[in-house]
């Protein structure tokens, strides 16, 4: 592009000329001082990594949570980014459109913050304390169990069924949570007990 070069030098002359006559002397020099080329500062610097598993489908991709603050040090941890774990044999760092956006699930504007209570017939939820909620729920459940429990069948065989209260367990909870939930539900004799595997 010799043309370009010759043109450039030509322009410099002209430019200089105009500069001299017009504003060059008037201290507009800084208008020329452009920001030097640079890339965005790497945003994961000084974050804390935590190995986790994508909670969506059953491929169970390995993910790394990047947080400001470290739970293991007793700090509050704010998750700033989530990315696939390249060490994981199944996903090898890749993630699908859901997994790649996990941070927005954690940070969703519709994440629940407080226990809420809706009175019969009401058109709104109202805040309720955990303690109040637990007592109220335990009472409602016990009363229903006591009132409708089937201890024995017509032949006097102990059948131990509580069929008037049911439960759906979440198949996105951990095995450990599931085991606790299992003990709770089957221990109470809840027979209407299923999880997403049913549907």
């Amino acid at each position, binding site marked *: 592009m010799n043309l370009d070069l010759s043109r450039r030098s030509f322009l410099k002359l002209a430019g200089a000329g105009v500069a001299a006559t017009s504003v060059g002397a008037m201290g507009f020099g800084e208008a020329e001082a452009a920001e030097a080329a640079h890339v965005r500062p790497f945003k994961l610097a000084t974050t804390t990594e935590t*190995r*986790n598993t994508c*909670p969506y*489908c*059953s491929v*169970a991709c390995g993910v790394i949570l990047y*947080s400001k603050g470290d*739970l293991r040090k007793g700090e509050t941890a*704010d*998750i700033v980014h989530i990315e696939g774990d390249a060490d994981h*044999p199944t*996903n090898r760092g*890749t*993630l699908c*459109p859901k997994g*790649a*956006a996990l941070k927005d699930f*954690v940070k*969703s*504007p519709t*994440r*629940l913050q407080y226990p809420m*209570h*809706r*009175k019969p*017939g009401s058109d709104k939820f109202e805040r309720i304390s*955990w303690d109040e*909620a637990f007592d109220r729920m*335990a009472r409602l459940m*016990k009363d229903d169990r*006591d009132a409708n429990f089937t201890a024995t*069948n017509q032949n006097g065989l102990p059948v131990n069924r509580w069929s*008037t*209260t*049911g*439960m*759906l*367990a979440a*198949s*996105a*909870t*951990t*095995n*450990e*949570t599931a*085991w*606790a939930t*299992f003990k*709770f539900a*089957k*221990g*109470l004799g809840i*027979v*209407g*007990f*299923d*999880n*997403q595997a*049913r*549907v």
Partner: protein
Amino acid sequence: MTNAWTDIKNTDLVIVMGGNAAEAHPCGFKWVTEAKAHRGAKLIVVDPRYTRTASVADYYAPIRQGTDIAFLNGVMKYCIENNKVQWEYMRAFTNAAYIVKDGFAYKDGLFTGYDPEKRDYDRDSWDYVIGEDGFVTSDPTLQHPRCVWNLLKEHLAPYTPEMVERICGTPKDKFLKVAEMISECSTPTKTMTSMYALGWTQHSHGSQNIRAMAMLQLILGNIGVRGGGMNALRGHSNIQGLTDLGLMSHLLTGYLTMPSEKDTDFETYMSSRQFKPLVPGQTSYWQNYRKFMVSFQKAMWGDKARADNDWGFNYISKLDVPAYDVLRMFELMYQGKVNGYLCQGFNPVLAFPNRAKITEGLSKLKFLITMDPLETETARFWENHGDFNDVDTASIQTEVFQLPTTCFAEEEGSLTNSGRWLQWHWAGGTPPAEAKHDTYIIAQIFLRMRELYKKEGGAFPDPVLDLSWDYADPNEPTPEELAKEINGRALSDVMDPTDPTKVQVAAGKQVVNFSQLRDDGSTMCGCWIYSGNFNEQGNNMARRDNHDPDDTGAYLGWTFAWPLNRRTLYNRASADLQGKPWDPTRKIIEWDGTKWSGYDVPDISPTAKPGEVGPFIMNQEGTARLFTRGMMRDGPFPAHMEPFESPVANVFNPKMRGNPVSRVFETDAAQLGLSDEFPYAGTSYRLTEHFHYWTKHNRVNSALQPEFFVEISVELAEEKGIENGSWVRVWSKRGSIKAKAVVTKRIRPLICDGKPVHIVGVPLHWGFTGSAKKGFGPNSLAAFVGDANIDTPESKAFLVNIEPSTAPKDKELVS
């Protein structure tokens, strides 16, 4: 999955049918891409829609939803007739040679013993001929006219390519091309893998869909081998785990089953489960049932489970029906017979069929408790959202508790993936505001109820009072404590069976795995198949060694897989009768003359001689079943059945509707539509941009797929005068929805039994909460009927009508 995600790279042919792996499991589908790129594997997609999986397939064939059995039976027939059978495998590892009782037959779409009143079969004739020795009689030459193989051939006879085209709408040439590609995998050195999901399960004959493919895989010798298997792509991250742990109304942990009223006492219960071998020298692993059961009962009730009270057998509910599955529960709710309901991370208002019935049911509850990290339509089912949730709030007397829980990022524990890997994860974030762990919430409700029972007494308080809850902090059991409980430990010294003087496991120590469990109350174990997950070596689910010797895809050092860290189920079947791998390049295990060894944990006793013990050790036969005896309610062979709502009649028996033995409640029977009023075949599915009803709460995924739509063919759009991107109304006998129309060439009308069948595709990700535009779900349309064996709702096939329409109105816009 019988195999692991990472094993798919070893396959030669992937058939995606009854699923849409690329969209629903993109990162698992990676391994299909690997197999294609590095093994030259081929991919076949058989689906009513040309999906994103089809977009990368080597061959795509269309099929009408709900007709997979006919298609697969057709393929089996093709393979048998063209001698494309892995003969040695099939003869040795299946029950093909067993003789079946006289009297068993199939006619007019029905097997022998059908009772239309009971909507059930008398299954007595569906069994083998058992000799005096108590063992099954067989004819290894496969000559006997009553042997399973010949009965199967007879059963498959009608499924000609012409019949397949007539039923499925799959053009004959396309069917034959698929059948031909599949049949190539009958050689020991070529394997096919089947990847399926809810496209097969959500049918009134879902179990039989899967059986049909399993049988095909057995005929081709593809079960237990690398790159083969039956791979159910489970939906949720831990749906496998919750099933393994028995969080279902008919199950206990580890596939131990709930007692029924027939199980009047512990011994009766045992007698019908502790299966004896049907073949001499066979393993029949369920012989150990009692060890697992007693250890489970000890885990539940500790010291209160004693020999003298049958280990608390009467603490366990005895069922008067096969199961209190979700359809039955919501039917009871609808009848006003349910007062309370807990939804933990579950959204039935969008997940269960016939939404109107679900909402009405919930409206009759006294109280509803929801536990979720996110808003759900269920927690707000009483809230009016105009057309999107048109309820009379004031008239709904249900008291609702909405409890905020932590999410994956804020909690620790293990999830079991589709490949049965139990993977441990750690908490990385602080929960928002007052969100609590599910374990805390469950513990609080339980402890407070138990307090009330201590104080007030009440209905049969014993199982509640005696439930073992001996955690360091009963208010919130830690994941480690619970994991150790699942693994199991010795309650008193456990002696070595080979040397009674030696202590095998000292009291208080974790058992190494379920092989150390006892039926004398000296061990406890929450879930036997998981045992080994957290033993004295530590938390095996947290292992992170990703080495893979010889790139088999096994990754034995990565986390823990049940059972016993085994990665490929039935892997004994990967070797021939001499114990040599069918395909030396794809060895999993091998018999070295004295023991089995190789890349995976052998799925057989390491010293069981090849000729003597069959590979399918969980079965009494030691072989896989091409004929299931009486174990499936709707037949020992898969037979074509139409969906309950079908655009065409069953060609074998026009009077037969759906699955003849599926349970249908009266009110629902009245709500089944006919094709004259609802001419189009509706189906439901997921889109890759969303995960169920969660990601609509997430602005990124909402931007990628913002608004509810239905997909129809160009032909149907022209017929109905529907513009691409315009509003349409879709309605069934049970409900009506409004959606944007996506007019596409990816759906084409199918010619079934001589008439065109138009398909209406309805994705399932929208509701009235979250960031995405408000919308509806297919469950407003789907029928309240389920599979005959497991009662999974028939959400994949229902009848609808469609017309151009206008935008739905939200509450603000109403009145």
